[in-house]
């Protein structure tokens, strides 16, 4: 077992416990934060003049699964420019927009991130996803099965059989070792199976008597019934199309009455859903409208989906959107249809500051983060790798903390682009406390992760220490220091083990895979068993062979939940 640790004199930011830059000591024993440690065998870390935060939590990053793997195969030219040789503690690997699994883990912990959520796992390809997650070192992870276009879900919901649907979803999450319900372009992916797409949340899905609105509402009810830790995680319809900010607002609004004062929906990579205008020539930012809605309603959380000006690989389960992108860029394209469940697509993409559309996209992400008053509602993400690779988060943090940093980027853009957004007039700058919320405490709370994202007694000892002193450094002027500090953590502690020192990986800790096990009644279980026959007709896999056993995960962390069915 690991040594006890004492982190002395650090300047602690722990928003979930209301600690805002206090100088204090943190004690760690047996991988958990404790009141105090005593005895001889204690390793003391002198963190004086450094920031101590909980380990970062990424709510949305495509790091594993079949589509990421297809992306790796598609982009050898992406790997050759970023090769990491092996060190005594790390394996060799390649990087950039679709890094190899080991490199992914190392790069996250080097930034002080310790928990990463892999969204959009086609349930049928769960086994592959978990194999890759098993090989993603150090970080804790979880994955969201795609359920928004599953035939079973559509059939149950079109007949208004919420309880049966809930039983199916509970079984599916358990079978695929998932964590939350992910909806990608609900209804649209099924329509893509016939070469089309839905254009609003009230369009009919072919061959199913259902609309996207009914799917979103139905799965939101299911989510409540099953008492899942996270809300539904939604990639909206019409993503990446001018004028789609209205779709995003309608999507958020359609579950308002189901919230009961709690959170009901997480709209992911919201930047891609905040375009105003009628076509690409008139496309402008709709972030202010979205921000106004989010400010006025408490049932919504979003993440940014910030764009980075670089060469990246876009990959989503949103097949029709990716096809549009392929037509737009002429780049190579991968399209995939996952039996009765979902679709996916991959297209390499380069964001350029001189392009008006890309520049406006860059502005929208930051506008969302800066116009939404409460950082508990908006989290840092680049929708890795769609907006840019995750190891550019320190850049995003520096833009949030410094108007000057934003201005330097905006200088590279065309004036016409800046007229289409309100970003040049925003002077808000995040504080370290707000950054700690947007990168750690907020996502942990939204995900319902207990014992994570904070440094209170009993929390898992995932700690990031950054070599920057908030007393001497003015983040708005010295944004480069911020960027450097956040990209190379002075220390990262994962479950009580020191895994990173001065930006270099120096240790190993087994990262766990989190999954939710919802307990359902025997009656509900009978419904599932009856599905076996239908399963035979629909799937290439036998019902009995479909679930993944728990011992398939290298390190399983089961989260039991009691449900209302």
């Amino acid at each position, binding site marked *: 077992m690991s040594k006890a640790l004492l982190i002395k004199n650090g300047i602690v930011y722990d928003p979930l416990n209301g600690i805002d830059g206090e100088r204090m000591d943190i004690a760690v024993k047996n991988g958990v934060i404790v009141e105090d440690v005593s005895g001889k065998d204690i390793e003391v870390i002198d963190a004086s003049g450094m920031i101590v935060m909980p380990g970062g939590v990424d709510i949305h990053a495509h790091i594993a699964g079949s589509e990421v793997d297809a992306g790796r195969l*598609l*982009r*050898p*030219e*992406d790997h*050759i420019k970023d090769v990491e040789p092996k060190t005594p503690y790390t394996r060799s690997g390649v990087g950039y927009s679709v890094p190899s699994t080991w490199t992914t883990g190392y790069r996250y912990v080097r930034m002080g991130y310790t928990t990463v959520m892999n969204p959009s796992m086609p349930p049928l390809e769960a086994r592959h996803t978990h194999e890759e997650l098993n090989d993603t070192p150090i970080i804790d992870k979880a994955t969201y099965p795609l359920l928004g276009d599953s035939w079973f879900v559509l059939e149950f919901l079109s007949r208004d059989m919420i309880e049966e649907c809930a039983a199916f979803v509970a079984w599916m999450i358990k079978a695929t070792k998932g964590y939350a319900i992910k909806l990608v372009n609900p209804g649209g992916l099924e329509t893509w199976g016939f070469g089309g797409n839905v254009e609003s949340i009230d369009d009919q899905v072919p061959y199913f008597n259902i609309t996207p609105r009914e799917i979103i509402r139905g799965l939101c009810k299911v989510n409540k019934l099953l008492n899942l830790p996270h809300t539904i995680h939604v990639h909206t319809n019409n993503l990446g199309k001018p004028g789609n900010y209205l779709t995003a607002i309608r999507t958020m609004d359609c579950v308002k009455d189901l919230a009961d004062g709690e959170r009901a929906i997480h709209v992911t990579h919201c930047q891609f859903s905040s375009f105003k205008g009628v076509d690409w020539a008139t496309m402008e930012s709709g972030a202010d409208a979205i921000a106004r809605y989010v400010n006025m309603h408490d049932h919504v959380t979003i993440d940014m989906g910030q764009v980075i000006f670089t060469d990246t690989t876009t990959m989503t389960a949103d097949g029709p959107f990716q096809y549009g992108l392929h037509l737009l860029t002429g780049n*190579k394209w991968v399209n995939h249809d996952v039996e009765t469940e979902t679709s996916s697509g991959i297209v390499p993409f380069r964001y350029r500051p001189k392009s008006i559309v890309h520049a406006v996209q860059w502005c929208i992400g930051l506008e969302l983060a800066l116009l939404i008053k409460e950082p508990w509602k908006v989290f840092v993400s680049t929708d890795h790798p769609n907006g840019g690779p995750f190891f550019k988060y320190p850049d995003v943090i520096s833009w949030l903390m410094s108007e000057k940093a934003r201005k330097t980027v905006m200088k590279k853009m065309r004036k016409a682009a800046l007229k289409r957004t309100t970003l040049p007039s925003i002077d808000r700058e995040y504080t370290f406390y707000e950054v700690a919320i947007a990168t750690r405490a907020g996502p942990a709370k939204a995900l319902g992760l207990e014992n994570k994202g904070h440094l209170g007694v009993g929390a898992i000892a995932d700690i990031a220490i950054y070599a920057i002193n908030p007393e001497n450094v003015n983040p708005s002027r010295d944004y480069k220091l911020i960027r450097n500090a956040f990209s190379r953590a002075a220390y990262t502690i994962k479950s009580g083990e020191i895994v990173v020192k001065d930006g270099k990986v120096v240790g190993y800790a087994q990262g766990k895979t989190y999954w939710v096990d919802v307990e359902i009644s025997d009656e509900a279980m009978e419904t599932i068993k009856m599905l076996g026959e239908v399963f035979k007709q629909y799937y290439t896999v036998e019902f009995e062979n479909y679930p993944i056993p728990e011992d398939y995960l290298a390190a399983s962390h089961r989260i039991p939940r009691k449900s209302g069915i």
Partner: protein
Amino acid sequence: MEIIILKPKREFKVPIFAECITPDILAGKTLSEIEKLPVIEGGKETNLCELFQIEGKTGSSPNDTKIKLVGDFSKVRCIGSEMTDGEIIVEGNAGLRLGEKMRGGRITVHGNAGSWLGTMMVNGEIEVFGDAGHYIGSSYRGAREGMRSGTIKVHGSAGSEIGNFMRGGTIIIDGCVDIFAGIHMQGGEILIRGDSAGRIGAFMRGGKIVLCGYTPSVLPSFTIEELRPKVKIAGERIEETFYLFIGDHADEGNGKLFISKDRNPHLKHYERFL
């Protein structure tokens, strides 16, 4: 011009990555400094002097440095990569990726060259007196940026997919080529004096290919435009009748494909579309 001579000390069994053998890196260095330069043999890093016998000296700048490689260098990769000036002469065979991303200067091979000759080349000159491998002047796997400018001349034959994603510059092959010459080509010129194994110009969007020899067939996505009595390419005029095809329409391309009439009598049926 100062000359430095490298000779292999033994026969190489595994690939060697010697990106340091360029006038840019060797220029201005003393012999003892050059001997210490790192190279990778198989999976292990060693020094240049472990593998090669080094004689002579280098000039103060790349443009008065000549590197002479004497012996079999067919296992040595990345010679002259990113060189900007100066000269490399290989008296023997050269390995893969010779002159990769080359920006200027001249490389001459008095033997055969491997595949990926002059990939992503920006400028400069390469001349091979023997045969060359596949992917001459092409892009890296998966990328769309091939050769941009400069000249590659091969006096022997070449392999398949030469000029893949080529954007500019000239490739001249005196011998024959394998399939898919000029695939995905976007600009530049390819002159093939020998025969082609077929599928020439697949997915080409622009540029010019001249084939003086035989090809089994032309891809169905090309259309015949006219008969030309002569063709000008790479500064020379070829007095011979050519079929001019435009394509590849499968990729909305507008490339020009000239194919010799005399050597391809089986393409006569295209003439009825004229």
